[in-house]
């Protein structure tokens, strides 16, 4: 019994972290129409940043400052935000696919940096031994899991609330205005490049927070956490749930993470031992098919965006249409 509950807390914690990252992507793609091809890079910057600042010292390796937890987490978030700022500054005034290509490139570059920079990231074996928050106080492993789940849910609620506040502020309306009609927004004196940059940076900071939480939970990070599959999973979560609204993003995160975990279980049980190596490929094909079929048949997702207008409520709108050139 306790095993099941303990597994459930693990599952929900991971789903919660995924949901936080999906909310970050929702701000970028759902509300602003920015294509982030390297979600995993900002997650990874947050994870490695937190680890380097707050982790234990390793001989012959930079970092291991052992800073207080919140300082380390804040540093990881800042690192993710700074990375997004640089990429955004270079690409946001150009055609939209430059951002897609560059963010994808950042993810590739970060992975090869993590794999090869022994002095900074511990190379392929990664970094371990992060002092988990409250771990010293709480003796039972199970109780720690529950407390951490509560922390993740609290952060999730905070991010949700923050984004809701943001998108219902004048800033959020301006974001949707540039997403729908850039020329009109520009004519009203809004600067699309600056607004997009802010959205990209804030979204990346949220993804970085997800990475920081992940390290705080597993106490371990390695280049295996920087594989592109995370980017695809987060996209699938947002597309399935419905871009442009936070309920959809969180629903999608729980559904896809559940489906991913279940399909992993099912494949290890059903597929013969000789084919276990292929199980991963089958999962990849499933997620690729899911992304393509959602875009073909239900681009608005399970919970479509509702454009609220005090005078005229028109429910149900298709997936975000980006700026026309």
């Amino acid at each position, binding site marked *: 019994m306790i095993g099941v509950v303990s597994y459930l807390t693990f599952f929900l914690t991971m789903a919660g972290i995924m949901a936080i990252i999906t909310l970050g992507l929702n701000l970028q793609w759902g509300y602003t*129409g920015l*294509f982030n*091809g390297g979600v995993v890079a900002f997650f990874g910057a947050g994870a490695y940043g937190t680890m380097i600042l707050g982790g234990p010292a390793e001989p012959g390796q930079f970092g291991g400052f052992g800073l207080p937890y919140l300082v380390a987490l804040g540093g990881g978030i800042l690192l993710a935000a700074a990375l997004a700022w640089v990429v955004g500054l*270079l*690409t946001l*005034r*150009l*055609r*939209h*696919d*430059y951002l*897609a*290509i*560059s963010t*994808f*490139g*950042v993810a*590739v*570059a970060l*992975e*090869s*940096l993590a*794999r*090869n920079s022994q002095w900074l990231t511990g190379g392929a074996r990664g970094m371990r031994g992060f002092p988990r928050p409250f771990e010293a106080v709480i003796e039972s492993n199970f109780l720690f899991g529950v407390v951490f789940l509560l922390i993740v849910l609290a952060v999730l609620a905070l991010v949700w609330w923050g984004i809701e506040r943001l998108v219902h502020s004048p800033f959020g309306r301006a974001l949707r205005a540039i997403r729908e009609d850039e020329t009109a927004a520009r004519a009203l004196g809004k600067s699309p490049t600056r607004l997009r940059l802010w959205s990209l940076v804030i979204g990346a900071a949220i993804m970085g927070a997800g990475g920081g939480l992940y390290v705080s939970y597993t106490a371990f990070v390695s280049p295996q956490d920087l594989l592109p599959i995370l980017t*695809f999973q987060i*996209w699938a979560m947002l*597309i399935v749930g419905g871009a442009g609204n936070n309920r959809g993003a969180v629903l999608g995160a729980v559904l896809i993470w559940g489906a991913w975990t279940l399909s992993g279980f099912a494949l290890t049980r059903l597929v013969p031992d000789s084919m276990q*190596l*292929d199980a991963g*490929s*089958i999962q*990849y*094909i499933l*997620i*690729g*098919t*899911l*992304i*393509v079929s959602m*875009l*073909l048949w239900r*681009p608005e997702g399970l919970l479509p965006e509702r454009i609220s207008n005090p005078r005229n409520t028109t429910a149900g709108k*298709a*997936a*975000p*249409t*980006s700026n*026309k*050139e």
Partner: protein
Amino acid sequence: MIQSILDGILTGAIISLGAIGLTLIMHMLRFANFAYSELLAIGAYAALVFDRLFSALVPVLDEAFAPLTLTGALALSMVIAMVLTGLSAVVIDWLVFRRIRQKADPLSMVFASFGVALIIRNVIVLIFGHHAQLYSQEIARATILSFDPLILIKPDQVFVLVLALVLMLALHLVLTRTTFGFALRAVAENPALAQVAGVRLTTVIAAVWIIAGSLSAAAGTLYALTNQLNPMIGPVFLLPVFAATIVGGIGSVYGAVLGGFIVGIASGLALLVLPSGYAPAMPFLIILAVLLVRPQGLFGEDQR
């Protein structure tokens, strides 16, 4: 140093072949196609299948053209692979991209292209496995061009470079000397006006996919001939071909060719100072440098 430049030119020729189609697609359909480099994988594996088939059925074809390791069977297979990959590119467009194009914005196509890439790559893994394969078990002997500094070159590499240049020249002639070439350039310039002038948009788009697919198949096969073939050929070439198109300027065929050589040579030279583990990040650094200095690329229009 000279060896690095030489190797860079050879890789560059393959990247160029791959980038030509991508720059046309990105310009005409206005989306960054992340499934594009999987066409190299489709081509290279199609060539592998037919190569094995012909070698088994017609042993005469299995003789290598000395001093190359290229056999008649492989040469024939490459031509078939080019046709088949061109057709698969059209089919993929019909099944996915065209349908999304009709109802959604270009960014949805970018999402979809990642999904398509995942599917193609992992279907290839399921069929052929993760391990590396070779067209020929023969050992390609390198010719020593000079001892000090030591410069080596394999006959296969010379053949690859020559064939790549011939294909590019052929494309150049098609684009500049035929009615079809004019139609294609007209659509790239102004699709609406080209349609008014009686150019069928769907035909031209299909033709571009065929060109893109067949050149990519050639690139994939030539890469596998001089190196080895494994399912990661798609992801490995993804950033280099994007870098080549951005360096050359989106929409410029000549820019893509030049960009491919620049990316190849720059990556080759960078490995003189950097450990080889950083190689995957090189094209990204080139992209950043171009965006910083000249975002429209060498021959591109303003992309704001």
